[in-house]
C-alpha cells in the first residue's frame, strides 16, 4: 500500500495586526512585562466580514490550487474550530460548496478547543487508509474570542490551515497518537460570548502534561530521540509554553524556531500548531523528519511524526506562511474593537 500523508496544504491569515503595546496602553498594563511574560508581540485580527468559514475557504482554495487535484475527488471535509459561525449548522458544508467538491462527500464540524484541526487530520488519515475516500480535507481555523481586558486578549487571534490528506504525499505520516483526559482548564459554555480559563491551572496539569506525555510517548514508541528530528512544533497558546515544553522534551531552539509563529501572529487556536507546522513545510527538504504535537483544552494532545518525501521539491509553496505573517497592516485598539464587533451600536 502506498504511503498516506499530506498531499497539499494551504493557509490563511487575516491581514490586520494589533500590537501588545496598543492593548496594554488601553488597560494600563506594562507592555514590556506582557511581551516578556507572554512572549506574544502582536496578533492577527480578522476583518468585519471574516469568520471561520471564510478563513477555512481561503486556506482550502490555496491547498487545492497547490495540489492540482479535482476538488470532486475530496470525499470528506472536517472543519476544526471553537468559533464556528453557527452553533447549529455546519461550517464544513459551506466550505464544500465554496470549493466545489460536489455533493457526495462526508462532512462534519469538529470542536476540541485548539486541537480540533489535528483531530480532523487523524480522521482523514484513517479514511484514506481504509479506502473509504481518495482525498480528505482537514481544516483548523478560528477567529478566537477574548473578553476585553482579559489576558487572553493579547494572544487570541485568527487564522487557519487546510490539509489535503491522501496517497503519494509530500509529508508521509509515519505515526500518530493521542493523549486525552477530562481536564477543565479552559471552556466556554453554550451561550457565553467569551471563554473562561483556570489561570495557572492551564499550565502544568493541562498543557504541559498533555503535550509532554504525547510527545514523549510517540518518540519512545517509534524509537526516536529529539535529535532525530529536523523540526518540532507544538501548540502555541503563547510564546513561552512551546519553548518550555520543547526544552522539557529535549529539543534545541533551532528545531522549533521556524514553526514558532505565535510571537508575530498570536494564538490562532485550532489553526495554531498546524500554522507553525505549515511554516515548517514551507522550508522542509526531502528526508526531513518533523514532530507535531497539538493541544486542545479540556484536554488532549495529538502527536504526529511526518517524513518529508521527494515530492515536496515539485510542490508549489509560495507565498510562505512567514511572508503572510510579516505583511500585516497595523490597527489601533478602536479599529480592533470595530472589527471584532465589540462596539455597541444600538
Amino acid at each position: 500500500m502506498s504511503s498516506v500523508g499530506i498531499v497539499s496544504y494551504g493557509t490563511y491569515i487575516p491581514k490586520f495586526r494589533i500590537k501588545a503595546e496598543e492593548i496594554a496602553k488601553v488597560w494600563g498594563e506594562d507592555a514590556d512585562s506582557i511581551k516578556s511574560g507572554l512572549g506574544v508581540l502582536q496578533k492577527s485580527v480578522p476583518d468585519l466580514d471574516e469568520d471561520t468559514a471564510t478563513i477555512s475557504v481561503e486556506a482550502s482554495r490555496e491547498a487545492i490550487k497547490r495540489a492540482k487535484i479535482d476538488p470532486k475527488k475530496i470525499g470528506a471535509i472536517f472543519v476544526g474550530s471553537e468559533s464556528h459561525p453557527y452553533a447549529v449548522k455546519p461550517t464544513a458544508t459551506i466550505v464544500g460548496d465554496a470549493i466545489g467538491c460536489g455533493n457526495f462527500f462526508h462532512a462534519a464540524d469538529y470542536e476540541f478547543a485548539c486541537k480540533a484541526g489535528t483531530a480532523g487530520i487523524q480522521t482523514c488519515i484513517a479514511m484514506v487508509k481504509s479506502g473509504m475516500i481518495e482525498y480528505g480535507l482537514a481544516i483548523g481555523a478560528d477567529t478566537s474570542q477574548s473578553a476585553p481586558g482579559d489576558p487572553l486578549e493579547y494572544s487570541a487571534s485568527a487564522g487557519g490551515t487546510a490539509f489535503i490528506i491522501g496517497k503519494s504525499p509530500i509529508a508521509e505520516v509515519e505515526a500518530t497518537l493521542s493523549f486525552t483526559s477530562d481536564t477543565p482548564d479552559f471552556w466556554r459554555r453554550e451561550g457565553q460570548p467569551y471563554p473562561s480559563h483556570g489561570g495557572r491551572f492551564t499550565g502544568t496539569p493541562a498543557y504541559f502534561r498533555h503535550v509532554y506525555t504525547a510527545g514523549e510517548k510517540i518518540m519512545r514508541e517509534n524509537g526516536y530521540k529529539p535529535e532525530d528530528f529536523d523540526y518540532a512544533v507544538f501548540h502555541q497558546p503563547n510564546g513561552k509554553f512551546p519553548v518550555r515544553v520543547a526544552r522539557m522534551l529535549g529539543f534545541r531552539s533551532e528545531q522549533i524556531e521556524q514553526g514558532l509563529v505565535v510571537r508575530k501572529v498570536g494564538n490562532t487556536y485550532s489553526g495554531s500548531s498546524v500554522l507553525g507546522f505549515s511554516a515548517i513545510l514551507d522550508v522542509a527538504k526531502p528526508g526531513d523528519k518533523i514532530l507535531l504535537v497539538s493541544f486542545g483544552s479540556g484536554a488532549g494532545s495529538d502527536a504526529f511524526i511526518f517524513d518529508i518525501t521527494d515530492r515536496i521539491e515539485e510542490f508549489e509553496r509560495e507565498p510562505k506562511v512567514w511572508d503572510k505573517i510579516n505583511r500585516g497592516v497595523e490597527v489601533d485598539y478602536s479599529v480592533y474593537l470595530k472589527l471584532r464587533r465589540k462596539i455597541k451600536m444600538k
Partner: protein
Amino acid sequence: MIAVEKVAIIGVGQSEFGELWDKGFREIVLKAGIEAIEDAGLEGKEIEAMYIGNMSGGRYLAQEHISALIADYSGLAELGTPSTRIEGADASGGLALRQAYLAVASGIHDIVIAAGAEKVTDVASEMTTDIMASSADREWEGFVGATIPALFALMAKLHFERYGTTSEDLAMVSVKNHKNGVLNPKAQFRREIRVEDVLNSPLVAEPLHLLDCAPLSDGASAVILANEKIAREYTDNPVFIRACTQASDYLAVQNRRDITTMESVRKASSLAYRMAKISPEDVDVVEIHDSFTIAEIMAYEDLGFVEKGKGAELIREGITELTGPLPVNPSGGLKACGHAIGATGIRQAVEITLQLRGMAGKRQVDCETGLSLNIGGTGATAVVTVYGVR
C-alpha cells in the same frame, strides 16, 4: 496565667505545599496527620481531641463542618474523638495550636493533635483575592476596594515615609527567605532570587511587588501535643511550648492608633515573654508571618527585637540571615514555603520543633529557644508561641 501541665510537641507532620492540583483537601490533611502520628510513635486511638485551623473551607471548597470531615477521614469518627475547626483567617493554624495547648496545659486532655489545612487552587484567582479580602473588614475596607495587598501597601508606604525603609529593604526579606527555602525540601519555591528580581517583578499594590507577596498555596500540617509525663514516655527530645498567647487589634486598619504597628503582635509577644520568663534577646530562632515582606519588617519591631522604625536595619545588617545572630524564617517563611493559609501557623510550629530537635538538616541553626508569630489578615489577630528544649 499558670499552666497546670507542661506541654510538649512530640510529633510533627507536613504535606508538600504548592499547587496540588491532583490532590484533594482530605488527602493532604491525612498525609500531614499520619506523618505526625508516625513521628510521635502513637496510635490514632490515643489522641483525645483534634483542633483544625482552616480559614475558608466554606468558600474554597463549599465545605463547612471541616472538623467532622477530618475526624471521619482520619478514622477517628468511629472512636467519637472530639474535633473542632478553628477560624481566624490566616492565623487559624496558630489558633488551633493555642486551643490544643490550652487543652493539655489545663489538664483536661493528655494527648491532642493540632492541624491546619487549606486547599485554595480549586477556585479562580479573582475568587481567591476576594476570599482573602474577607480577612479584613468587609464593610469598611473590602467594599471600598481595599484588598489585603493594598492594606499592607499602605502600611509599607507610611513605614517608608516615617522611618526611611525602602523597597530594597523589603526585597532583601524576600531574597533571604528564598535563600533559606532552597534548603527546605518541603518548600514550594526552592530557588534563589536577587533584589533586582523582586524590584523588577510586577507591582501588585505599590510599593509591593509580586515577589514581596507570599503565594497562596495548598497544604496541611499537624503537630501532636502531650503533657510532660507522656511526652517523656514517647520521645527523648520533646520540644516544650513555654507560652502560646493570642491578642487582637482593630479589624480595620483605619481604626488603629498607628498603622505601622501591629498592637496584637506587641501584646501577644510581651505576654508570651512574661509567661516563658524570657526576653526577646533570649530567642535563638524565629518563624515570622511574612505574608508580605513589610509584615516581617514590622514584626521585627513589634516582637521587640529592635525598636520601632529600625526593623530594616536587621535585614540590612544580615542579623536575620540563617547565619546571623537571630535567624528568621529558616524554613523559607511563607514566601518560599508557600502560604497554605490555615496550615501556616502549624507549619511554623513544625519548623521550630525540627530546629530545636536539631533535625532541620542543611538549614539547622544553633538554638534552644524558638518563637513563632502567626497573624490573621492585616494583624487583627496574632498568635505568638515560645518553644524551648526545656
